[in-house]
């Protein structure tokens, strides 16, 4: 679970840093951070529903932005929270494509201790970086 919430970056919103050895792992960490912003205990979100998610983007940044945005959309439109992700990313002619199988369940106030509703991903200071040990992202969520 290589992500951490940052305390002094955006005090009115929620900021996190996510990492991974591969781009896929970093995307998974970022997705888990989005769920964990909204639910206190990730383990309380069981794998009862599987959902295929496909997004694309013209950069690794926009791919991550679109992916996280899709998770926020599914939380409101289908009331789904996810705690496991299988992710595959390909790149062709400057277009990045992501295919994911997300596992989770319907949001339930009795089972999930809810924190704060994520409304959008902000592009303010949004970063995807290649590091020595893999990939890193810095994200601010509008709550």
């Amino acid at each position, binding site marked *: 679970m290589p992500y951490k*919430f*940052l*305390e*002094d*970056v*955006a*005090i*009115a919103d*929620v*900021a996190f840093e996510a990492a991974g050895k591969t781009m896929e792992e970093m995307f998974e960490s970022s997705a888990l951070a989005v769920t964990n912003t*909204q*639910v*206190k205990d990730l383990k309380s979100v069981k794998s009862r529903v599987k959902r295929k998610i496909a997004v694309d983007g013209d950069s690794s940044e*926009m791919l991550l932005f*679109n992916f996280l*945005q899709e998770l*926020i*959309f599914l*939380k*409101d*439109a289908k*009331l789904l929270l996810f705690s496991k992700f299988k992710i595959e990313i390909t790149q062709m002619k400057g277009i990045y494509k992501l295919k994911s199988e997300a596992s989770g369940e319907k*949001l339930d*106030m009795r089972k999930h*201790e*809810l*924190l*704060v*509703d994520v*409304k*959008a*991903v*902000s*592009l*303010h*200071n*949004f970063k995807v970086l290649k590091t020595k040990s893999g990939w890193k992202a810095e994200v601010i969520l*509008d*709550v």
Partner: protein
Amino acid sequence: MRLVLTSLTYNDVKPHLKTLVDKLFDRVPAGVGSTGFVKLTKDEFRKVVVEGAEWCIKKGYGWEEDLERTELNGKADWADVSKVSSKAIERGFKQIGTLGSGNHYLEIQVVKPENIFDQELAKKWGLFPNQVVIMFHCGSRGFGHQIGTDYLQLFLSVMERKYGIKILDQELACAPFNSPEGQDYFKAMAGGVNMSFANRQVILHRIREVFSDVFKQDAESLGLKMVFDVSHNRASLEEHEVDGKKKKLIVHRKGSTGSYPAGRVEIPKLYRDDGSPVIIGGSMETGSYLLVGGEKAHETFMSTAHGSGRTMSRTKARNIYSGDKLQKEMMQRGIYIKSVSFSGLAEEAGGAYKDIDDVIEATHMSGISKKVVKFVPIGNVKG
């Protein structure tokens, strides 16, 4: 943000406070992913997007007079639902009548006699000592945010390529106002504003039902009249003076409230001679204020704060405060609070916010908005 009067005093409400808050908590869903009681088809929701609070009045969720106490009469009439994505519709159509989470709340408050600063205006606007009022803060939920995200993506794709605009912060992606993309966004955004008017209108209807139920009297005789309803996040076409010349500007108030001095056309007729009512919410522990647009408001393009502002992140607040301890302490101080989660409560602790009295004093002294009344909380529903 919406402020509602009652004809009840603190002594009338005190014995029923717990029942009131518990019922409000049941009737006005809050928290992550909450959905409302008003079940709409997507097509009906599209009507809400166009008609705003007017739709609610037609359906019986409110009184005709509520509209004249809402900015834009509860309807941004330039909304065009064809400019709103199906994704946004899908995200929003179940959310009418819900509070949301974070800093959104529904609060029962009291006008302490020593907290009336402008006696004449307070009286004119229906406020009196020891009166109980209701204030609530929420907007268009995920719907407005989806519109924002949709157009952010569109602007990013045309901004530089089509219009040659370069920016340092991608979140500020834009297009010229008179471009097709700019106009489409302005019309879609109006739909978000309308959803927020309708959301708060349905919530007011629920509040009236709850009070009526608890006090066994109809909402009219309990004096549940609106004072004002105002958006905290929208762009508005307004005339302002720039370098001595009158100019038409787009004023985007994000986390900000309009504060118009007397006479401005943006103020509903009812209040035009007084200046616009300005509602500024404080933390759940401290209090909130009603002010009036001041003479110096032109210096900030007639905009003022919409709350006291945080001093620390949610993560930090959660590490410092404990939600259940806070709830008990507040109970001892006469504030009954009900929240979806203790962690959410800890994030909203009074200490995580600036001192509202300092913020208001600065606003008052600057002449941007002038103090009318301060309200202290006695009951609170938190998302």
